[in-house]
């Protein structure tokens, strides 16, 4: 875990309004990066104090040999907007790696990933890790329309990529969570990341359709953060084992442990 200045080497537009931002990063950070972890990016110049706080972004991909890290940034507001406006060659102030990781159980062979919007980012990293371990992966991604989906070329070829759109312009017409029941028998584990409402419907679909506690579901939750290292206690998640920080104990939690 450290602060570092990266240099932006590439920008690639994706999902309609978002950007894949690639920048240089220290080798030890790149080698240590695992799916689910995130970095905190300063969304401003160092000596200008607005917006004040760093913004968390999941690691989307790493290329240790080239010394590069990629994050997927959706410009929701000022911070995200400032970051995607940086040009190639400019500096980016990054703190990381932060947080825990998705945990693939040793005996799991069939993995279901459920993503909504920019929740695609950590799951893509996970899908790459799983494919490298020769595991079967189905990746369900939901978005408002076809233009807001991740291009299939971003997804490893071995992954079964299934999409849902709210307007029916691509794939299944409806919410991505509607597709989940079909895969619950098949999957050993489910991994999810997306907006709050997606978690709510995922949870009710899983509770209504699975047998006992199988498959287990790991979710990456989103909280406003200040420090990212467990010092401020601003990013808590209420769990059955008490209050946990989403920046150190999370962002990945077992769905059954979270007090929804």
């Amino acid at each position, binding site marked *: 875990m*450290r602060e570092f200045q990266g240099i932006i080497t590439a920008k690639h537009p994706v999902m309609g309004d978002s950007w894949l931002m690639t920048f240089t990063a220290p080798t030890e950070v790149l080698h240590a990066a695992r799916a689910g972890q995130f970095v905190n990016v300063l969304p401003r110049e160092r000596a200008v104090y*607005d917006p*004040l706080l*760093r913004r968390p972004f999941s690691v989307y991909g790493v290329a240790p040999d080239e010394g590069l890290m990629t994050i997927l940034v959706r410009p929701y507001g000022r911070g995200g907007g400032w970051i995607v406006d940086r040009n190639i060659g400019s500096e980016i102030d990054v703190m990381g790696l932060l947080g825990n990781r998705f945990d693939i159980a040793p005996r799991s062979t069939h993995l279901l990933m459920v993503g909504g919007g920019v929740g695609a980012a950590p799951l893509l990293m996970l899908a790459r890790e799983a494919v490298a371990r020769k595991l079967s992966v189905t990746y369900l991604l939901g978005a408002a329309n076809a233009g807001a989906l991740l291009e299939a070329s971003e997804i490893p070829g071995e992954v079964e990529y299934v999409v849902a759109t709210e307007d029916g312009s691509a794939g299944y017409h409806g919410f991505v969570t509607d597709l989940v029941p079909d895969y619950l028998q098949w999957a050993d584990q489910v991994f999810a990341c997306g907006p709050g409402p997606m978690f709510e419907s995922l949870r009710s679909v899983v509770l209504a359709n699975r047998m006992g506690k199988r498959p287990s579901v790991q979710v990456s939750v989103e909280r406003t953060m200040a420090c990212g290292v467990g*010092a*401020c206690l601003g990013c*808590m998640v209420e769990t059955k084992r008490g*209050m946990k920080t989403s920046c150190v104990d999370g962002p990945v939690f077992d769905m059954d442990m979270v007090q929804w």
Partner: protein
Amino acid sequence: MVTVEKQQYMADLTVDLAPSNPRELVLRNPVIPASGCFGYGLEYSPMIDVQRLGAFVCKGITPKVRSGNPMPRITETPSGMLNAIGLQNPGIDGFIRKYPPTWEHWRVPAIVNISAESVEDYAMMARKLDDVAGIAGIEVNISCPNIEAGGFCFGWDARMSETVTQAVRKATTLPVIVKLSPGALDIMEIASAVEGAGADAVSLINTLVGMTIDPRTRRSKIANLTGGLSGPAVKPVAVRMVYQVASVVKIPVVGMGGISGVQDALEFFMAGASAVQVGTAVFSTPSMLTRLIDELGMWLDSNGCTSLNGIVGAANPAFGTRGESTF
């Protein structure tokens, strides 16, 4: 990233925050991370050389375990943030078991921030901390509601601030820093009362009570409704209050509120602070803490000062006069 670097400056940065206390509180430099912004000193250890700091203040400790406020607890505001953490902490007994045994082996002095809702509870905590190894001093957070006084904030009333300080003073020989609340009507009156009651030093400012509303949800962005404002947005208020307090007390003043770099810290020293704390700025740039030590030393060197004393109170003609020359 812990590197042992050669000191980059000549100036003497040492400061004693409890000059009239036999147990003294001598810091190697005047840079201290503020309570609630540095956890228990361990959280930032992978990122900065914590042992280089002048001291650090841990998260506020209370008589009993507290799980804190509901979420959301923090929100960003223009050049600042609001927080309502609700003093989540393991309680005084759990705290004493958990952290001081580690700090005992540290070079950096650890200051414990305490909060309570009655005078007896403040005294009880001070008593328990008195002979715990690994603790260098106590910072008394008086920005808390006094339950016996209908929830009125201790730190807004000179009598109540005095009573708490006296009780803590009696309960411990440790250096006692009383942390003042910027919500007080007359901060100078409170500071004088606390000095008279035996405080070794005062620190200020704590956060200012604020609120922000999300028009979309038509609700406060903080579950607790109000939160404490901190960060660069509060700095001018903090400098003014440090100036006022340093004009009326002789004990050391520890200044804080929005410090993000050496230029900000210099303002506080020149207003009359002998040391500074850094809170919110640690979140975005942890490395700033150790950089601040070096930059301060180098600034003094290049401005012809052999020690920090050369600038403390430089902008404040009433500094250290106990208000003899009027503010």
